[in-house]
């Protein structure tokens, strides 16, 4: 399906189509293409059609429907849903179904959105390629021998391959933006606290944020305006700051703005094609009326190290609950409680999850806490200050999303450090809690999509989205992947 969220809502609103027809089209696209990319962990055709019929019934009865009435949506499988399993792409939770629903899913459903299925991810959202899924591997929508990107790979591929117009991802260190960039779609990580984390299976609690993956910026604004907002069940949710989007209502001209460019984001390791496209993208922002300003982000070089300490520390604690006692995988070969714990965890977790649990446990251990975790918290403050200073001068900061386009399947699986470097430009927004968006800005010599990252001031998603919207207007950077071409 190639309609946007906006198109679908408009068409259904005008009675030009029905929710059932839209959902059926989405399900047909999944049936036709998912075997090639394997974006979905589960698809709920029956439930989706029933929900669509309910929307159509309400429309026919003249009842009020929400702003996403009839829009098919895919949910990353680390976000809790009633009725559908929530596996986190882990053996540990392979058979787990949540008895409650995440705040964002409640909001989507009450806005009339139709959940068509759950999407694949790196196990517990830990990874940059989707190769860490314990279930199966999702591949890139543009080339099956390239990685989908991670960890929200399934969601990005589902949108890029035209199976759904929008999907939810979660972003702890780039997990929305990286796969969005690798698949040529728009991915937004909102300000920390903007969207409720209630029902998002925690990886790094102080970094995690749920956000939309869509084909264009207006759709991202529409979805964000539904999922953002107050939720008393999440203490870190910032209340009283609703997201009201100008562009969702057709307002498309951003105020004159300045864009900061930091040399720290264009250093060693950046692929030539990515650099060229991103620089061209910054040039295009200039044509849109932006003033370009050189800025410094002196602590950016420590972001990856800082991130992998804080995220793993929190993960080691967040994942302690998966112990085989109360739910999830339980070993069949335990003679005592210690064996029950250790065997269940050894069998239930994949290699990358174990690596991060061990790293996190180590950095919190007595004798090492001050050297690693405490120092990382201090660096985090410095990174945040860098941004505070930069945003005194500029409205947004532009950078690549990732140093390369989607790499080849298997290319980095034996080198975790190289894999971690895929997050080099994205983690600092999580450490600082900033909103950041990945916008398609071109293609490399192999035709693989390239992403431009814009970071904004806290709670200024609307500016990012308005700029992104203007940026994409008149380009085909965000066209659907070749997978959707019927001639193929």
């Amino acid at each position, binding site marked *: 399906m190639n309609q946007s969220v906006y198109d679908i809502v408009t068409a259904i609103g005008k009675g030009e189509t029905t929710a059932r027809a839209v959902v059926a089209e989405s399900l047909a696209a999944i049936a036709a293409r998912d075997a090639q990319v394997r974006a979905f962990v589960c698809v709920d055709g029956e439930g989706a059609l029933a929900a669509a019929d309910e929307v159509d019934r309400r429309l026919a009865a003249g009842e009020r429907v929400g702003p996403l009435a009839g829009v098919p949506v895919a949910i990353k499988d680390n976000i809790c849903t009633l009725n559908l399993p929530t596996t986190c792409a882990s053996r540990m939770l392979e058979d*787990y179904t949540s*008895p409650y629903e995440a705040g964002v899913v409640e909001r989507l459903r009450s806005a009339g959105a139709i959940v068509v299925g759950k999407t694949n991810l790196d196990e517990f959202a830990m990874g940059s390629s989707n190769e860490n899924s314990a279930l199966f591997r999702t591949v890139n929508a543009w080339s099956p021998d390239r990685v989908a990107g991670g960890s929200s790979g399934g969601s990005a591929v589902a949108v890029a391959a035209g199976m759904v117009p929008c999907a939810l991802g979660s972003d702890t260190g780039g997990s929305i933006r990286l796969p969005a960039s690798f698949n040529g779609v728009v991915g937004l990580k909102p300000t920390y606290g903007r969207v409720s984390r209630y029902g998002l299976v*925690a990886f*790094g609690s102080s970094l995690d944020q749920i956000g939309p993956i869509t084909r264009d910026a207006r759709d991202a604004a529409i979805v964000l305006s539904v999922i953002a907002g107050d939720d008393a069940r999440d203490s*870190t949710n910032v209340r009283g700051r609703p997201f009201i989007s100008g562009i969702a209502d057709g307002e498309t001209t951003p105020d004159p703005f300045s864009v900061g460019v930091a040399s720290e984001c264009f250093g060693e390791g950046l692929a030539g094609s990515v650099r060229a496209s991103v620089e061209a993208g910054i040039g295009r922002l200039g044509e849109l009326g932006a003033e370009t300003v050189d800025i410094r982000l002196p602590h950016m070089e420590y972001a990856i190290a800082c991130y992998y300490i804080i995220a793993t520390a*929190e993960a080691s*604690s967040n994942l302690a609950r998966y112990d085989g006692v109360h739910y999830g995988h339980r070993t069949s070969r335990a003679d005592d409680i210690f064996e029950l714990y250790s065997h269940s965890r050894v069998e239930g977790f994949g290699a990358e999850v174990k690596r991060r649990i061990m790293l996190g446990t180590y950095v919190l251990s*007595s004798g090492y806490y001050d050297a690693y*975790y405490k120092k990382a918290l201090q660096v985090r403050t410095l990174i945040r200050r860098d941004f505070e200073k930069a945003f005194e001068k500029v409205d947004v900061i532009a950078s690549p999303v990732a140093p390369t386009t989607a790499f080849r399947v298997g290319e980095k699986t034996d080198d975790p450090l190289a894999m971690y470097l895929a997050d080099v430009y994205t983690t600092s927004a999580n450490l600082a809690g900033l909103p950041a968006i990945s916008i398609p800005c071109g293609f490399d010599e192999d035709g693989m999509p390239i992403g431009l990252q814009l970071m904004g001031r806290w709670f200024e998603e609307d500016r990012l989205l308005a700029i992104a919207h203007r940026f994409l207007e008149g380009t085909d950077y965000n066209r659907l992947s070749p997978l959707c071409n019927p001639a193929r």
Partner: protein
Amino acid sequence: MYSEKDITHRLIVGFEIHVQLATRTKLFCGCAVEFGAPPNSRTCPVCLGLPGALPVMNRRAFEFSVDTGLALNCAINRLSKWDRKSYYYPDLPKNYQTSQYDLPVACDGFFEFNANGQPRRISILRAHLEEDAGKNIHDTPGCTLVDLNRTGTPLLEIVTLPEIESADDAYAFCTELQRLVTYLGVSHGNMQMGQMRFEPNINVEINAGGETFRTPISEIKNLNSFRSVRGAIEYEYQRQIQDWLADNDYVINDRPNENRGWDDDRGVTVFQRGKEAAHDYRYFPEPDLVPATTEEAWLETRRAKLPMAPLKRRAELVNNLGLNPDDAAVIVSDRATADLFDAAVEAGASPKTLGKHFVNLWAKLAADRDARVCDLGISADRIAELANMVDQDSVSATSAVKVAGAMLDSPDSPMKLAESMGLRAVLDTGETQAWIEQAFAANEQAVRDAAGNPKKAKAAAGFLRGQVMKISAGKANPKLVGALIEARLREQSTQE
């Protein structure tokens, strides 16, 4: 080697106390705090630690902690934060406990109490909030069941400095602390239900041959009665001395500190585990909660609302109302009873008579019903009226007991009850004189003794007074009876 007579020693005790706060719901979710509900029926995704669930702080629990901190003369941290304490246990579903590490609600206070009539004071190191764990049930052989109803119950952990030097002082401290938290209304303080759990840290300083030795510290886990606190400390004091005498290397740093349990049946502490290596709890700031902040103005309003501490209230009863210290202690033993007493004074009765009634008459009626005086359901006005009737000789002290008993079953005024029971005191001289004549006639020997035998006069006169009261069925006024008997005996001796 030293023998017992070669050494002097001093007991050193500090406390960790877990106080279950009297909130309606748990610390981080809306589940009811309820004792004895069917297993796992008071649980939700948050307290079960399900994937994706998040904690939200119970504001009431925080307020209760602040109140306790203020009553313990602590500094209240303007910003107190939450930390995760990691350890694996089946009754801890997240495998970490949300607690407070470096910024607790309250710190650096002190608490005053009386032990054997002597004022004592102990330093409070800190008081922090944390969630309770669930319960492992090992009733079925080869099978452990887990009940998570208790998981997430708010606990305030109070930590003292090791400043207590006797088991009696420890006993007095624990009882006074329990009284304080129930006065504040922050805890029901019910020991049987585990709402207060005491963990004394005990060791002994031994002086021998001009040197000072300290035994390893033993922590006695989860004591839930005052008697066991005293018993465990007394036992440990002697055990540690004996262990040191048997092995002079039994000293702190050379030998591990110990966790021990109290065996109530045998009256001994039992070794549980040595604390060779400190467990690494990997504390780190809880990212799912925001720090709790307090402002001075808010603290002042809470401070202003604090009830008077029981110790101070007792002193006021003694100093301002002239009660004796023991009676005052009984009256302030719980806040509602003390409030009832104050209301009865307010209603115009004499504090001294009320004091006698509260301690003897009402307390006994309450004890018979396994209740507190305030639970008897008698209004302050009726309690005051009965005290006034006694003071005004409308009923005798003996009759007052019967009237009080009747008051429990009838809403009538005590005066009306006294009348209907025929206990209204008779102040008529003629009627009283007639009872005296009847008593004298029936007890000639006693009359002779009372009038003429100096050795037996006093006892005999007392006996005669008792006989008169008996004949009058308690209606005679004792003072009048006494005066008339005295006059009658004088008459008798003049005649002889």
